[in-house]
């Protein structure tokens, strides 16, 4: 299904956060008010205004210092927990293999955010809406690569044809192993049946703050199996909710515009 994917080679990431800024710029997401709490990582949470961020982790094991950085956000899973969890069918796979949220169908129930094994769906309690990385679907269908990978200066983010990217990733892992990184691996090839964001990690996923073995929660799967066929009914049942949410969507857009104006 996935024709094109994005490599996130964490072993080449310098944490410059050009990707993080590019995402906000392309998608016109407002800045979040933050505080310095002890790490370079900020904002602390994913939200409707923050779809991706660079995660910083530091270690000092027996004098060997490691400062691991990696761009994180929606993985665009094949076996997407959020899609299974969504009661209205608002979450779907696009023809390009990315996972998208239909704003109109989203009722803000927050099930997707709760089910996501990577915990990267932003949920805004005020506007009652779920949002996340779109893989820059609007750019993709216009022949452009995602804004984040276009901004990356080091070759940590590389967008391309799936097979090419996989072999690039495999070669890189071999190199990292040769250099002594015994825990180097590809992450996202087998996990949740494959993800459109494919990592090369120089160490174990946990050390980057990624789940070791991401799974669709069992509850979500059961829920989906039972209620899945009834989704259409759910849609009707929550019709009112959709209408209500539409109004909220407008409010959110307005809030964003205001934030933008303030910035200007």
């Amino acid at each position, binding site marked *: 299904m996935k024709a094109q994917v994005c490599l996130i080679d964490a072993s080449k990431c310098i944490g410059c956060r050009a990707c993080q800024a590019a995402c906000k710029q392309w998608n016109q997401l407002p800045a979040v008010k*933050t505080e310095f709490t002890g790490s370079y990582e900020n904002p602390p949470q994913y939200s409707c205004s923050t779809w991706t961020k660079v995660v910083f982790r530091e270690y000092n094991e027996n004098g060997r*210092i490691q*400062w691991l950085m990696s761009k994180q956000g929606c993985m665009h899973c094949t076996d997407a927990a959020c899609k299974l969890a969504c009661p209205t069918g608002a979450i779907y796979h696009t023809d390009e293999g990315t996972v998208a949220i239909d704003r109109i169908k989203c009722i803000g129930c927050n099930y997707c955010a709760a089910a996501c094994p990577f915990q990267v769906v932003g949920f805004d309690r005020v506007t009652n809406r779920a949002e996340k990385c779109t893989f820059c679907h609007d750019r993709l269908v216009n022949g452009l690569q995602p804004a984040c990978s276009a901004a990356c200066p080091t070759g940590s983010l590389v967008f391309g044809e799936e097979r090419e990217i996989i072999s690039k990733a495999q070669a890189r892992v071999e190199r990292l192993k040769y250099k002594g990184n015994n825990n180097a691996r590809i992450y996202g090839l087998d996990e949740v049946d494959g993800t459109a964001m494919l990592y090369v990690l120089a160490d174990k996923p946990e050390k980057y703050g990624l789940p070791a073995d991401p799974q669709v929660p069992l509850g979500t799967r059961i829920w989906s199996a039972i209620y899945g066929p009834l989704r259409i009914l759910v849609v009707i049942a929550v019709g009112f909710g959709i209408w209500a949410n539409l109004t909220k969507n407008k409010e959110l857009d307005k809030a964003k515009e205001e934030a933008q104006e303030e910035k200007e």
Partner: protein
Amino acid sequence: MTNHWIDYQHSDVIMAIGGNTAENHPISMKWIEKARDEKDAKLITVDPRFNRTAAVSDLYVPLRPGTNTAYLGGLVKYILDNELYHKEYVEHYTNGTYLIEEGFDFNEIEGVFSGIEDDPIRNAKKYDRTTWQYQRDENGEIKIDPTMEDPNCVLQLMRRHYEKYSIENISKITGCPEDVLEESYELFSTTGKAGKAGNILYAMGITQFTHGAQNVRSIAVVQLLLGNMGLAGGGVNAQRGQSNVQGATDMAILYHIIPGYMSTPQQATHPTLNDYNELETPPSGWWTNKPKYLVSLLKAFYGENATPGNEFGYQWMPKLDGRDHSHIAMYKDMSEGKVEGMICWADNPAVSGPTAGAKREYSSKLKWLVSVDLFENETASFWKREAGANPEEIDTEVFILPAAASYEREGNKANSGRWIQWQWKAQEAPGDCKSDLWIVNELFKKLQQLYREEGGTVPEQITKMHWDYDGPNGEVDIVKVCREINGYNVKDGSLVNNFLDLKYDGSTACGNWLYSGYYNNLEKPPTKRRIREKEGIGSHLEWSFAWPLNRRVVYNRASADPSGKPWNPDVPQVWWDEAEGRWKTNDVPDFNVNIPPRESAKIPFIMLPEGQGRLFSAFVNDGPFPTHYEPADSPVSNFLYPEATYNPISQRFYEDHVVETEEEKERYPYVLTTYRVVEHYQSGIMTRNMPWLIEMMPELFVEIDEELAAELGIKNGDKVAIESKRLYANGDQKSIEAKACVTKRLTPLMINGQKKHIVGMPFHWGYMGKSTGAVANDLTPSVGDPNTTIPEFKASLCNIRRVG
């Protein structure tokens, strides 16, 4: 840079020392990663902090701030002891074989060279350099010993000078474990072999010390010993941190040079043009052309008013009075009420200058202050309550001229690799914001009018100036500026091809000889070229224009052996084709291709009169061999030279300014280094008005190691106070506040058996803009290097305590 960014792909070992390249020059990593991917290149980071570059390095070398010369001196000794230097290169291309005067000596107790004497005017020492000269025979030829065994030859003197720089001693000084030192020395020395290229990258972590110039010299010495100069993947590569700081330096933003790196005339020694030419023109080397460049510059300055009869207007040129007029000295003058007004152009010293708090105070002695910036910055607001001042007590009149950002104007910019690239305007500037060029044009025209009408002191300096840059509609015609920088023939205004066309007789005008050729064609100016190289070694000769003469790697004659065979045939810069009897090139040759290879091999470093690289240089104010001096604010005394002070030649501007006594060392026990983060830019006035960047780096912080944090009861995110001697007066200790960043990336270092903690602070914050914070530079001392007076931002002492 002697090389350029794209050239990094050819390096075998890259040492980032005193330069956090991933953080401050992210694009460099593209080429470094390429080198690592394709040729298994290794990256070494030498830095007090495990920084973002260290995070992706093969080897991290920690060291105490201010001990780079010791570290590099240790590398020199390692190279010499293990005979790892590139012998043929050193013999043919450096002054390693030259004999130095018998009287040359070094005092191991005081850490000073022969010729030391008092300099009461500068409240420091200075050198009489008689004993530092080359020995010459009766014909004036330099005496050499090709075997390099004569005890007075440079290589032997060097062995002696660095005898004490053993790994054991260097470990005690720097705090770096011996095995890590050795590993890094061994790895970098592998580039001494023919066919291998070692690249040293640096930035302010090398230069911003009271011994900054010597740090740079150390790098040059290492690179000459290993034969890494002139070749692809090698070089001494200063990475510039602002988009056009290279261009600013080329254009002589510094007081001691005039455009194109010629010295500013001194009234005492250069009263006439002839005096200047006699004193400043060496007997051999490329600088023998200097008089042509100076006269062409004078013609650009004064136009038709410059004639052979009036020394081409040389008398109108401002001349120096022998004193230092750099940043620290200028502010000292200001503190004494000697400065009436100041134009602060794209500069924010109230945040970015050393001892910034005092600078803000001195500003109130100005009658007027003009600030040209994108936003209202701290310097322009020194009088406000936000700055801690009382506006009622300040009489200074402040003007703010809103400037256009770089994307809102067109013009050329020089990058670190000396590429003078045209930048097109991306959008109009908002409101009344104007380009710098427009502002300077209007300002000068007004000044000229006033001087014409009202006169003044030496009005000719202004009234005789050739100033004709107006374009249509009240705009500046930038092409007129480019023409003048490029140079033209006075007779018909036609553009000169390059600096080889410049003349001494006043028939050519040129604003900067080094740039000559960058705009030698009105239709297709080289600076606007954008053609990528299809095959080759990445020189991209048809992409923009690199000074000088579009040369991408300078001194490239040294990339081939004396017969013309490249040291590394895989990526040759130039090579002699025996069959065809001519040179072939991948770059613009830095030598005369019309003389036989063995002849050009005698002068690969064409800018120097002796034509060969200087392992020993009598032209540095503080000594011919780089020598370890402690920073002015140091937690320990000099381990190598027991009676040495900090750099003895460095001017002592203020009394009781740096930490001296044991009691003070206890009061300020931690070594502070300041730095930049990628999310903010310089004094922060641009980026602290940008919400997306503020979101990522919202507040001033201070990095502290876990052990020190535990000792002081400081937790991550706590508010802490930082104190230094600069904030101490009459028994009253002031402090600045920041958030604590307790990190595993810093570890205490063992300095000669004593544990010392290093703390680090970015300096981007101030009291204006959307994100405000204390000014880290309130802590740093106003001391500087004796060659450049660049301030010592990178190493000082402080105390830290928890607040509340």
